[in-house]
């Protein structure tokens, strides 16, 4: 009797989870997989096959955009790590107790501000009539207005800005748990600063580091607003291609193909990352 009610309540608890994962995550993914394999041969007539994928490979603009998105995302992830690690270490280990909470909160504020507002802030700062340009003119550094938007460096600065917090937060929470005695032991045993960093700090921070890199990479590769608003017409970001195929051209078959490729690519990178570092999704991302 007791185990019957137990089973019933387990099924009831399982129901929302199953509905959510099956109807909103799994089946829709199969849906775009299916549409991507569908080739339009006439009005309302379709054939199954890999025509959409061969069309993708036959068009250099498409796969160049994917490659560009890929390497820029990896670059942004790396830069976010380089920029964010010292900040995370400072907050977790060097700042005094009181300052620590304040700095951490300060880190979180931009997290709550929409991407759109942040990108808009960069536009106000960097465009031709923007603050940076007019301040430089006023100081006499340059003679005429200078356009700082619409180039790759600006896009990268903007992307690092958007995602660096997602790198810092997991790093702070793992570094926070590190016992200072471990560092002292490292120094006392004659380790140089670099050795202590490489042999003690980095291995200890690994779960947070991997979590930060995964989230950062996914957010960058899937970002839309920052590359488009800061990069302008020639940002050639892959999500923009997906949007164009779906909404502007109403070519769902091509759009779905792009979607599958982006998902496959990002999943591959995450999987390789987890493999190389010996972590799993449950020990990293879920730890937030």
């Amino acid at each position, binding site marked *: 009797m007791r185990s019957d009610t137990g089973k019933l309540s*387990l099924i009831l*608890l*399982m129901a*929302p*989870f199953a509905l*959510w994962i099956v109807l*909103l*995550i799994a089946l*829709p*993914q199969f*849906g*775009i997989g299916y549409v991507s394999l569908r080739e339009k041969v006439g009005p309302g007539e379709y054939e199954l096959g890999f025509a959409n994928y061969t069309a993708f490979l036959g068009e250099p603009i498409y796969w160049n955009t994917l490659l560009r998105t890929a390497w820029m995302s990896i670059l942004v992830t790396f830069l976010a790590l380089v920029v964010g690690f010292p900040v995370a270490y*400072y907050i977790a280990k*060097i700042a005094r107790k009181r300052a620590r909470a304040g700095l951490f909160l*300060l880190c*979180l*504020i*931009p997290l*709550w*501000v*929409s*991407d*759109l*507002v*942040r990108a*808009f*802030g*960069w*536009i*106000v*700062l960097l*465009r031709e009539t*923007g*603050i940076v340009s*007019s*301040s430089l003119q006023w100081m006499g550094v340059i003679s005429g207005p200078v356009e700082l938007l619409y180039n790759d460096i600006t896009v990268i600065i903007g992307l690092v*800005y958007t995602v660096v917090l997602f790198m810092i937060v997991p790093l702070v929470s793992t570094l926070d748990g590190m016992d200072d005695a471990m560092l*002292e032991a490292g*120094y006392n045993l004659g380790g140089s*600063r670099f050795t202590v960093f490489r042999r003690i700090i980095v291995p200890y921070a690994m779960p947070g580091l991997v979590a930060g890199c995964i*989230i950062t990479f*996914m957010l960058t*590769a899937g970002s*839309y*607003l920052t590359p488009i*608003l800061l990069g302008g017409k020639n940002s050639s970001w892959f*999500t923009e291609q*997906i*949007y164009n195929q*779906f909404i502007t051209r109403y070519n769902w078959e091509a*759009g779905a193909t792009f*979607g599958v490729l*982006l*998902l496959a690519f*990002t*999943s591959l990178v995450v999987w390789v990352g987890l493999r190389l570092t010996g972590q799993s*999704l*449950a020990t990293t*991302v879920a730890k*937030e």
Partner: protein
Amino acid sequence: MKRANRSPFLNAVYATYIVIFFLYLIAPLLAAGVFAFNDSLFPSLPWQGFTLDWFFNDTEPKLGMFHDERLLRGLGNSLYIGVIVSALSVAAGTCNAFLFVRRDFPFKNALYVLMVVPLVIPGVILGISILVFASMIANGIDQGLGINLTWLRPGIPLIVLGQFSFLTTITSLVIAARLEKFDMALEEAALNLGANRLRVLTTITLPFLVPALFSAFVVAFLVSFENFNTTLMLVGSDAPLTITMYDRMVKVGSTPVLNAVSVFLMLGSGLLALLSVIVQRDRT
């Protein structure tokens, strides 16, 4: 902590770096905020004097955000979507938390990973996949039964479903983290004293979870409110605020009314986040 091998020079460099980093963090927010109060038609220098026109003025060309009907409608839609989707995802997240913290069942670890997966799927992909899947169902029903289900076409119901699909992961993790800290002895004591399971749940376990439920709700609401990527793919005629704002930015270009909206959003989300921090602090 002993730090004999740290030179003052390096310390200063390090501190300077931290200051520069926070300046980098604040600069665009400041730029977006300050020009909401500049009495000019463009969000740029020179400074023309302080004004609140971009919030409250009711005539063109300086139409304030509180008199701009499209922005207000967008704000209304965002609030409506945010409240519904947060309530739904907190409810589902609570079920998931109990499921994974309290129960044992086959493939638990694999299913747990599946629960986290929506966080690592790009938002654009979630959006298009739900759009495609909903349209497939709607077309099937339309052809088979001749019924046109409008809620499966782009619009607010689809936006709610799309945001729900990844917000539930966030709420589940937040609530599960709190539930794990719960002392089972409390429930056992109540059961021994003769309370039934439902009574224990409503008088002991749920009150313990309230701070987590509240902060999960706030987080879900804020993320929903500022979501762009998933929403963009599912939007119909009732656009939420972020989409309305983006449209304005692309079609009209930057105008200080967008700075005003930015200030409004920053204040709003700042207050909500603060509230959630306070609620959490009180209870722990």
